[in-house]
């Protein structure tokens, strides 16, 4: 006990010349009255961002953007098959590509 009293006395001595002047500020934060005070308090509120939904939506938007931006250009290669000239992609998969 004696020891605690000693510490308190020491702190009191050290803080003797310090005065707490921010009572109003603290009150503004704990009990906001004006719109500005309310706004600042609202902004400082802690909020929880759900990681999974937000990152999924962001990733989805990114993927859509990449797909739109980099749509594969249609191949315009031509191929002669059976005396006719076709677009390669039209006859591909019909087992006729190799004929010429």
């Amino acid at each position, binding site marked *: 006990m004696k020891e605690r009293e000693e510490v308190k006395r020491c702190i009191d001595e050290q803080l003797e010349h310090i005065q707490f002047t921010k009572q109003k500020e603290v009150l503004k934060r704990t009990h906001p009255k004006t719109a500005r005070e309310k706004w600042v308090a609202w*902004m400082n509120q802690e909020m929880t961002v759900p990681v999974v939904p937000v990152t999924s939506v962001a990733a989805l938007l990114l993927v859509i953007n990449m797909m739109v931006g980099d749509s594969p250009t249609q191949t315009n290669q031509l191929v002669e098959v059976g005396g006719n000239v076709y*677009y390669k992609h039209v006859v591909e998969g019909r087992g006729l590509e190799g004929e010429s």
Partner: protein
Amino acid sequence: MKRKNFLYGVVGMLAFSLCYVYLLAPIVEERKVERAFSQGEPNANELIINLIDRANTDSQKLHYIEKYMLMYSFCCPIKDVYLSPSMSHWQEEQSWHGFTLEEMVPYLEMYVERRGNVDGVHYQEAVVLLTDYYAFHTSILEATEYVEAKRDDFIDRSTMIHMPRELTMKLVELYIDGEQYTKAWSLIEEYEQEQLHLEEDEEWKVIQDGELLEWKVELLIQEQKVEDAISRITDWQKRVQSPEDGGSYDIEERLASMLEQLKKIDASFSYGTVSGVIANENGEPIIGAEVYLRTEQQSSHSIHPESEKYRAITDHNGFYQFDHVVPDSYQLGVGLDFEQIDGYSWPVAIDERIKVSSGEEVDYDVTLVQLLEVNHPVNDHVFTGNEMEFSWKEDRTAASYQLAVTTYFDGGSITHIVKEGIEQPEVEISIEDLYHSAFYVSFAEPKERYSSMLHPEQQLSYAHSEGRFSWYVISVDEKGKEIRRSTGYRLNEELAQDIPFFQMKQRTLTSADQLLLRKKVDQALSSYQHDIEQREGIEQEHALIMATKLLEHKKEREGDDNGEIRRVMRGYIEQLYELTGREEYEVMLSEKG
């Protein structure tokens, strides 16, 4: 997380997006254009126009016009397909065509008007392109006045001491086209005088002289000084050295073909004209097609627009015209876009020519006709019965049809007309007729030996039951002249639904056939000879045909000094004739040994 931190994050993202749209996107856009442009993608035009329109500053716009329009549009637009009666070639990949004059004109006008500095070659190119446009759409006179004014303006404003070459050449050309020959001569002389004081690379000078000579020759012909023109070309040819890559300069080719023509003509000749309309059979004109008038010497070569002497472009009515045509025999060449020829063909005889006599005005129209549609067999239909039905859409203008079948083998294909004079748009072909179609055999003593490549699939021909075949049909008039055909450009998906391939599985491959397909030729021959003894009916006939074909090949390769191979071959053909009584074998036997 504090709410305000989240908000700062969102605002930051928005700011980044705005930066992207206004600062980064243009750079990305230009990259995209750059890629489309360098890979020759067909939509590059649209992207480039967009890029120019959206550019923020004038200097940026002019830079893009220079980079994407002027650098690549000076001579000739690239066409997808080049056709002439004796040749055709097409680009393996549909590519960017460059800009048409019509598309470029608003941008070129902007370029000429807003570019402060006239130095450099692009300004002259822009003026030349605009002059071409005015000459085509207004009149030669207006175009001449335009280029005269721009040339004077150039000389006033330019920091260069010598005459603007491109503008001067264009003016000479227009003076000649407008029959202002005196002005053309004096401009050429003025230009040549000035050139004397310039020190230039000798090779480059020769090329330039050649281009000037082309105009001088035109003028000399006009004055009926053909001999003089000939000697000037010959002198020039002595000076020119072809490029190191073994090719030749475009001007060299143009002057060479001019010289050939001049040697054939009379000094007192006068120019002819060739004009006509290029349209499809529905009367829709083919606009913007390139048209070339090609001499006999040129007609066996591919079309290279820059080395063609006679070049024209069809107008909005599909009309083209060549003035100043030296009397000669020509073939017309046409350069088209795929869209213009898709689903159509130009039926023309391989040896068709346009004869132009002195002073003659020749009309020559080109009509593209729709392709015939095939019905059956298509898409790898498999025939198993002896009678095979072929059918196609009727051509009401046809007197009869010809049916051709193509056989494919390693590295090539061979096409035979299997039936002519077909009156209906359908026909039945018997597999036996195909098996017994005539093949080459000679009973003459081979003069020299040569080892030609043997293609098993080609030898088996229609008897190759694992093979694939394609077919086409041609409709002809009473004189046998082609009206339309079923083969051509089928790029539209609707036209590509039915691909005329089929298979013939009436027989199965014998072990002799299998040996042949594995290129064991001698073993295959023994096996066929064995089959001749052992089998009967169609398989015996097949063995006789195949043994004869392989003996023919053996004879070419090894010679036949004592006539043994030919005796055996003749024996086989006689046997075939006895078994089938077919005329084909009678004809083969009638050949003297």
